[in-house]
Every structure is written in C-alpha cells, then in structure tokens.
C-alpha cells in the first residue's frame, strides 16, 4: 500500500491559514508582478500605435503642400518676330523655335510688368526677376503656342509656375536666412515675391498638375507630377488583375478540389508557401533575367512590371482562395453531387460562387500589396526618367512608364529638398489608393460574410 497518502506531518506543503479578505504579502507581490506584466502589454500596443501616428503625421505634414503650388499671373505678349519668323503660323516651321526663344518672350514680359510696378527693392538684378519663374514655364508656354498657333502676336494673361524655391518660400521650406546661403535663390527674389503676393499677382492654389503632370528634371521640382506613374501603376494592376486572378483561382480550385493527395501535390503546396516568403527583390532578378534578358521584352514597360508582380502576388491569391474554398462546407458539394451534377459542375456552380467574397477579399489585398511594391520594379528599369505618357492599352503596356512607389524612390534620390515634398505627396496618393482598396475589401467581407 505504498500509494496510500502520507500522513500530513512535514512542514512542506503546509499553508498558513489566513483570511481570504486580506491578501497576504506573497499575493500582493504576485499581483504587483501581474500589473507590471499588463503594463508591458499596454506599452507595446501604445508604441505600435504611436509609431503609426508618427509615421502618418510626418508623411502628411511633408506631403500635403505638394497639392498646392504657387503661380504668377502676368500678361505675356507673344512676339511674332521671335516665335514665328516666317509669319505663316505653320506649326512645323514654328517648332524650330526652341524653348529658349519662349524664355526670351517670358523674360521680356516679366521685366515689363514688374518694371511697371515700380517696386523699390535694393540689389534686385534683372537675372533675379527672370529667375522667379520656373524653367519649365517657357516649355509649357511653347507647348501651348504650338497647340494654338493663332495666339502668336496677341497678349495673353498667363499663369506661370514659379521657381521651386519661391514656391518653397510660401510653404515655409525656404526662409530669408536660408536664401542667404542658397545659390539658387536670393533674398531679393523673396522680397520681390512678397511684393508680388501682396498685389495678388502671386498666388498659391490647388495643384491639379501634380496629379496629371509627368516627372520633371532635377532642376524643376515645381513641375514634377505623378501622371505617368499613376498610368504605369494602373497598367500594372490591370496586368496583375487579368493574369494573377484567373491563374490563382484556377490553381486553388485544382489544389483544393481535384488534386489527389500525393507527393506532387505536397511539393506544389510547400512550394507555394515558400514562394510567398521569397524576398520581393528576388522576383525582380527573375524578371530581369527571364522577361528582359531572355524574352527580350522592353525595359521600364508596365507589361514586365505586371508580369513580375503577377508572379509575386500569385501565392497570396492562392492562399486566400484556398482558405475561402475550404470554408465552404462539404455538405454543399455533397448536395450538388447528390442531384447528379459532375464534380466540375458542383465546384463551378455551387462552391465557387459561395467562396467568391473570400476570394475577392484576398485578391484585393494581393493587389494592394502589388501596388505598393517597389524593389522588383527597380531592377526591371522602372527607375528610368520617363516624360512621355504611355499609349493606350494594349500597345501602351509595352511603352516605358513609371510606377507610383518607384516615382517616390526616384524623388528621394534627388538633392533638391522640394522633391521630399513631392515624394511625400505621391505617398499620400498611394496611401489613398490603398485605403480605398482595403475599405472595399472590408466592405465585401462584411457585406457577404457567411457563417455556416
């Protein structure tokens, strides 16, 4: 009878009898440890939330001003002798006059209208006056005149972009003190800008061109926009949508509904879950080696970007779709088979429609991931400087374009601090797109969520 309880003799295990109403010192100590532990948890959550808030506020603080831009409104006399020496308003002839000629026209107009204001700014040189408008302004004027040759000879009221530093002055990025040290802007120019703003000639207003313009060169941050990048991103998303979704859904249906349980299926499954964790840059190397070097597709083309992102998104879509298919109870399949439907019919007529909300949600999240992806696109030449809008699809898919996140990267590599504002602005646009996609996913999940 060794299993009989030992007599309660030793002190070990004995407990001092105390009232429940008073916590003993050990319990108090343990409760303090409990409180500390909880505090760690609260701190962790607080750090995560604060990090998010800090991240978003800095991006918005830096980027909000990208949506506002400073313009100068001046009357410009489009001198026919400079712009159309032949005098026949022939566009082909006129396009021989380069941007430089329009610059002279613009400079003359500036000197005239600012001279007429009789401002008294000591040390203000003619170069200072000409320098307050953007270098892009003459190119924009040329484009406008070539589109409408009849303007030549007239005097038109123009809204021209001002130089990025002057724009920065109105956004608080440039100050008198920083202008002293800056070779690109002088304090006199800022005084002039102040005077012009006082007279209402210089206004800061909503910047539609930021959304529509293509990128601009290093020296002209004020003209840079995300138009080409948005088109490129949209094209790539179309490619992903048309390739990744059908392929992903088809693969999931096979693996979940038809595949025999054998070694090959096992390998495919392990392979897919590993592929989901392969660093995105490796997909970029794959795209460079296979699509560009081997298949000879053009660099910087949305089709290549789309293909790379498709391969990258496939595992995500497959994993989400399989989860959605798995959630459809087997009784539905049995019911369809029971009335004489073929296996294929039961899947396509019953299981797939029921799994659709889950599939859509997973797809949208996969697309959102693809939209924000940058690294693989750098390797397939999307960093190239692209000023031309790509053509319409499908041929446009082969034209060079940029992509939103790559455009952001591009701008971070430039020295002018005005590009930080542009990059942050582009991120705001990107985040708005992502937010919409995620809200749509949440809406679909809520609207069609089904519980069995």
């Amino acid at each position, binding site marked *: 009878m060794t299993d009989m309880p030992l007599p309660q003799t030793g002190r070990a295990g004995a407990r001092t009898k105390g009232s429940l109403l008073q916590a003993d010192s050990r319990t108090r100590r*343990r409760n303090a440890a409990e409180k500390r532990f909880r505090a760690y948890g609260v701190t*962790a959550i607080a750090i995560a939330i604060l990090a998010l808030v800090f991240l978003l506020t800095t991006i918005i603080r830096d980027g909000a001003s990208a949506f506002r831009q400073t313009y100068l409104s001046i009357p410009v006399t489009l001198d026919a002798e400079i712009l159309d020496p032949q005098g026949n308003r022939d566009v082909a002839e006129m396009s021989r006059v380069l941007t430089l000629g329009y610059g002279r026209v613009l400079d003359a107009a500036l000197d005239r209208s600012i001279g007429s204001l009789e401002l008294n700014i000591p040390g203000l040189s003619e170069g200072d006056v000409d320098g307050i408008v953007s270098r892009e302004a003459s190119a924009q004027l040329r484009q406008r005149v070539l589109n409408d040759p009849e303007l030549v000879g007239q005097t038109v009221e123009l809204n021209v972009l001002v130089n990025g530093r002057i724009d920065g002055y109105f956004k608080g990025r440039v100050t008198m003190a920083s202008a002293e040290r800056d070779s690109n802007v002088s304090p006199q120019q800022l005084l002039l800008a102040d005077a012009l703003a006082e007279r209402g000639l210089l206004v800061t207003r909503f910047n539609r061109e930021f959304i529509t313009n293509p990128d601009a060169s290093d020296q002209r941050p004020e003209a840079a926009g995300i138009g080409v990048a948005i088109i490129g991103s949209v094209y790539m998303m179309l490619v992903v949508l048309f390739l990744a979704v059908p392929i992903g859904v088809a693969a999931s249906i096979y693996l979940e509904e038809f595949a025999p349980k054998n070694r090959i299926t096992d390998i495919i499954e392990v392979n897919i879950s590993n592929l989901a964790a392969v660093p*995105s840059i490796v997909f970029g190397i794959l795209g460079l080696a296979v699509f560009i070097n081997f298949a*000879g597709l053009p660099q910087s083309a949305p089709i290549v970007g789309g293909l790379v992102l498709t391969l990258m998104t496939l595992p995500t879509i497959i994993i989400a779709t399989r989860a959605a298919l798995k959630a459809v109870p087997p009784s539905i399949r049995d019911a369809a088979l029971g009335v004489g439907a073929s296996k*294929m019919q039961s899947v396509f007529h019953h299981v797939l429609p029921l799994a659709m909300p889950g599939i859509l949600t997973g797809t949208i999240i996969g697309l959102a991931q693809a939209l924000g992806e940058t690294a693989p696109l750098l390797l397939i030449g999307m960093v190239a400087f692209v000023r031309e809008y790509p053509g319409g699809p499908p041929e446009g898919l082969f034209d060079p374009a940029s992509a939103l*996140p790559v455009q952001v990267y591009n701008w971070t590599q430039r020295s002018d601090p005005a590009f930080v504002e542009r990059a942050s602005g582009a991120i705001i646009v990107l985040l708005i797109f992502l937010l919409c996609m995620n809200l749509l996913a949440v809406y679909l999940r809520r609207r069609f969520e089904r519980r069995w």
Partner: protein
Amino acid sequence: MPLSWALLASLALAAAGYMVGRSRAFASAGADSRTLHSRPTYHGMSVALLALIPALVIMVLGALARMTGLLSAEAGGVVGLLALGAAVIGLGIGVSRINAGFMARNAVEKIVLGFLIFCSTIAIATTLGIILSLVFETGNFFSQYDWRAFFFGTEFVPRFEGNSRLGVLPLLWGTLYISFIALLVAVPIGLFGAIYLSEYAGPRTRSLAKPVIEVLAGIPTIVYGLFALVTVGPMLRDAIAQPLGLGSSASSVMTAGLVMGIMLIPFVSSLSDDIINAVPQSLRDGALGLGSTPSETIKQVVLPAALPGIVGAVLLAASRAIGETMIVVLGAGAAATLSLNPFEAMTTITVKIVSQLTGDNDFSSPETLVAFALGLTLFVITLCLNIVALIIVRKYREQYE
C-alpha cells in the same frame, strides 16, 4: 501586329463555333433534346475550345520563338496564318464530332481540368525560373571571379574600370546586424502586443487596436523607407549619434533597424496571435484553477506551450528582415563596412543587388553579375529560414489539432 489580328480572328471563330456546335446539337437531337448525352451548351463549348486551343498554342509558341530569336519578326504573319488554319481545322473536327451520344460535357471538363492543372504548375515554374536564372548567372560570375574571394572577401568595392573587390562578408554583416536590431524592436513589441490583445484586452480595445496594427502591415515598404530617410535618420543623428560622437550619418544601421522593426511589429504580432490562440483554453483553465495569476499562466504555461510556434514566427520575421529592400536602400547607406557601431552607415545584400542592377548593365562584367550571386545567397538564406520555420509551425499546429 498580325498576331493580335490572328488572336481576334481565332476568338471570333471560337464564338462562331460555339453557336454552330449548339445548334448542331439541337439538330442532331431531333425533336427531343433530352436524348442528348450533354447539354447543348457543352457541345458549343467543346467546339469553341477545339478551335481556340490549337490556335493559342501555336501563337504562344510563335511568340516565344520570336522572343528568343529563333524566328525573325517577319515570320509573325506566317505564325498568324498557321494559327488561323489550326483554328479552322479544329472547328471542323469539333463540329463533325457532334451527335446525340457524344459526351461533350466530359470532353469540356477534361480540358478545363487540364487548364486547372496547368495553372497550379505555374508556381513550380516560378520557383524553377528563380533558381535557374540565379544559378546560371551566378555560374557566369564565378567563371570570372574567384568564389573564395566572394565568400571570404571582407571588402566590397566595385569599380567600373575592373579589378573590383566583391566580398560578401561586409554585406552579410550589415544585413544580419540590421535584421538583429529590427527583431530586437519587433519581437518584444509584437509579442507583448499580441499577448495583451488576446489575453487581457476587452472587446472594445481589441476592435480598436487590432485594425491599427493591421494598418501598419498594409503600408508599403517605400513609405517606411522615406520615413527612415527623412524623419528617423536625421532625428537619431541629431539626438543620439552626434552628441555622443558616434557618427554623423543619418543613414545608419540603427535607422534602418528601428524602422524595419516597426514594419515587422504587425507581422510578429499577427503570427504570435494565431499561435497563442492555438494553445488550448483547458491549459489556461488548469493554471488559473490552481490559483496562478493571468501573467503567471501566460509566462509559465501558455508561452512555453507556444514556444515552438513563436520561434517559427521569429524565424519568418527574420527572413522578412533579411530580404527587405526599400528600407535599407533609403535608411542604411551604401558603404560596405564591417563595424560594430550601430550609428554608422552600413549596407546590405539587397542594397547592393539594387545598386549593381539599376542603370546601364553590362551582363558580361563581374560587377553586374555579382548581383546574381548576391541574389542566390539571399535566396538560399531566406529559403532555409522559411523551410525551418514552416516545419516548426506545422509541427506545432499538429500538436494541438
């Protein structure tokens, strides 16, 4: 583009084939369409597929041949004609097959099944593509550059004029150092966050905090990169590195590691959340029933039970950190240094892949090809981490299923 015309024509043929097949099926059934083995739509589909598939196959093969230079551009028209011919023949065969007893549904389903199988092999093809392209170009690299100098070299100095030193060690060091700091940030925060949300927080806190953390997961890495470049880097430099005399660079291991850590918080917390929730409630009850406090229950019962799963999650997070590109490109710097100072700029494998492969590439020079060797190194490291992590996590789940 003659191929696109051929494509359109084949599609039109397929559509016509569908209509013809359907009406033929009706006609062959006579008065009673119930005598048909398959519904007329399946007859239509079988004809359409028979017309379309051979044409598509020919066109895809033709396009591939043209890309690889086996065919000249002018041959495109011939390919288009061939494809069109195949479509017509397919259509003819398809229509002639139709009679009341023809098992059109089974034929169509076989084709669809074939398509499904084809799609599920694309994942395998992708992996093969990755491995082949990496191995092939790495082979090229090692034929020009000594592999010992690559694996054991302590300097990474590519020069365009040649005679570069391309040792992987400083890059590996930077990668691991940054990942280590990132995990140091992400694992405690993510783990404690997940514990708090799953064991303590009320439904209201949970419904508020969880989406916020998920938002952190949905932010693209380029955004974190910009955050590191514009905000965190200068902040760390001005507040810590310069006053302490540890360096004057805004890009540093600490900058990149810190920001990457923030990026990984939701990753760690959602994985740990799953794993902690997989620990059966009966174990918690057992501990609480013996009079342990909730924190004792977590520390002494839940966490030890969840440990393998959490180790797996940390490995997955490490693999993420090692493969992360944009944050280090913008936050870590470009100089390959072997140093212990976390406020010094260092560089990683991914940064050098980007810098060696962007711009004009000369695919015969070791300076470009080294990127593929780096890519292969990265792929092998992350693959090993992923496989080990997946095995651990899978074993762990089976234990509680």
